């Protein structure tokens, strides 16, 4: 490859210089005529001859061309380039390095088991990350190896940290076959509806039943003779009653955002939280943390601090009563399913004491009261301790 150099020769007699260059048989191109000087590209071997024979002219090298220019630039900036390359290599190494492996499960033995298994497969702290397919095959092999202990396993790579989420396999191993059962009342009440899918209904609508009474019989009888024993099934809804005692203060503090918000930074190591900057919110505040990244086990958060003002509300007796009954209703509603409902409610007693209101309430609820109670065929209508235990577990 020809090595051209851009040069500038200062001379008022440009034509004379060109003639002299021509006599020297030099190869020059891209000649540009500037004031009192001539600028052109010349071959490096020709430049040596020019310098040798035209000593009266001052030759100034301006620039290199092509690959030589690149070489020159690289040489000039070698420290910066070396630094960048080094930084890129360090970045690549660090971004592919595992600094921590977290197995997310409450059972420490299972955690250790997973960590040990991962170690055997080359996934350890300060080792390089593996590809998605490799992780998939590791997951499959661990699941296969511990198929009696692991239900589900997931490896989640978050930056330099690997989170292993694991679900333990729970095997229910009941030795006995409890295939015969009654549906009995779990609490006292008045039957409101009964649906039998298996067995014989023993009660009718509006019947009062006590706790433990058989509602749907698993023993099918004909003329007082047991013809078959089945596991009774069906749903029995009854009106049941609750006495509820509740209280609440007559004054309440409500926190409201003022609209003022300031940013801050927070680092978290384990359960220790440290706010990096001084808070610019005076007084009451509400904090919202936004996760940024995690490095060497330290989590970095952007913190949004909202200024809040506290408003004190003082209820009168009527308002407090209304609020308290609503609270009781809400709490009870949480326990009820779609077919269960509150039928009636009544405040039996109320009392104001020490700026608090206390009430006793009577609540009537339409509720599913039928639960399974297992029995052995030979000992019909009786249940042993194990049966009861199993029944409780089911319920």
């Amino acid at each position, binding site marked *: 490859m020809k090595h051209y150099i851009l040069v500038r020769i200062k001379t008022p007699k440009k*034509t004379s210089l*060109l*003639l002299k*260059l*021509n006599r020297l*048989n*030099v*190869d*020059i*191109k*891209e*000649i540009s*005529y500037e004031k009192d000087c001539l600028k052109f590209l010349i071959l490096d071997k020709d430049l040596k001859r020019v310098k040798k024979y035209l000593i009266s002219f001052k030759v100034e090298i301006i620039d290199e061309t092509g690959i030589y220019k690149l070489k020159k630039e690289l040489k000039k900036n070698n420290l910066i380039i070396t630094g960048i390359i080094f930084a890129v290599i360090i970045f690549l190494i660090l971004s592919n390095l595992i600094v921590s492996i977290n197995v997310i499960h409450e059972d420490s033995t299972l955690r250790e088991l997973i960590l040990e298994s991962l170690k055997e497969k080359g996934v350890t702290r300060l080792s390089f990350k593996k590809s998605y397919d490799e992780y998939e095959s590791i997951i499959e092999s661990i699941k296969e190896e511990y198929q009696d202990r692991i239900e589900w396993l997931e490896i989640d790579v978050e930056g330099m940290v690997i989170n292993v989420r694991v679900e333990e396999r729970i095997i229910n191993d009941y030795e006995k076959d409890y295939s015969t059962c009654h549906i009995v009342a779990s609490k006292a009440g008045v039957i409101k509806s009964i649906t039998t899918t298996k067995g014989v209904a023993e009660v009718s609508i509006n019947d009062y039943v006590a706790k433990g009474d058989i509602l749907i019989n698993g023993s099918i009888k004909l003329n007082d003779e047991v013809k078959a024993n089945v596991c009774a099934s069906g749903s029995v809804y009854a009106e049941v009653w609750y006495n509820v005692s509740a209280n609440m203060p007559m004054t309440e503090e409500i926190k409201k955002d003022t609209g003022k918000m300031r940013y801050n930074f927070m680092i978290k190591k384990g359960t220790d939280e440290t706010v990096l900057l001084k808070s610019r919110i005076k007084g009451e505040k509400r904090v919202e943390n936004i996760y940024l990244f995690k490095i060497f086990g330290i989590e970095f958060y952007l913190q949004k601090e909202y200024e809040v003002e506290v408003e004190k509300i003082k209820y009168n007796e009527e308002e407090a009563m209304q609020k308290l009954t609503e609270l009781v209703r809400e709490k009870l509603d949480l326990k009820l399913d779609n077919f269960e409902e509150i039928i009636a409610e009544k405040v039996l007693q109320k009392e104001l004491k020490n700026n608090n209101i206390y009430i006793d309430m009577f609540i009537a609820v339409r509720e599913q009261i039928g639960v399974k109670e297992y029995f052995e065929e030979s000992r019909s209508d009786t249940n042993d301790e194990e049966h009861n235990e199993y029944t409780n577990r089911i319920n």
Partner: protein
Amino acid sequence: MRIMKNLQNFLYDQEYFIDIFQNCLHVYYYEELLSLSDTLIELKLKEFILVIEGEDLSISSMDKHEMLMKGKINNMRFKR
């Protein structure tokens, strides 16, 4: 450019070429540059001397046997 000229030279077996463009002149295989100024350029070719007259004449590129000149060419003559 030179590759093409070499190829043409090889194919046609010519001693020299003179190409005239809009405001430049390309001479291939001249023997000597006899004179050079803003208004006159004289080139010795094998069989004649090429005299180029014009205004603001200048050489854009040159080597031992090839030259590209620019400027307003008014007249071109061959001196034998």
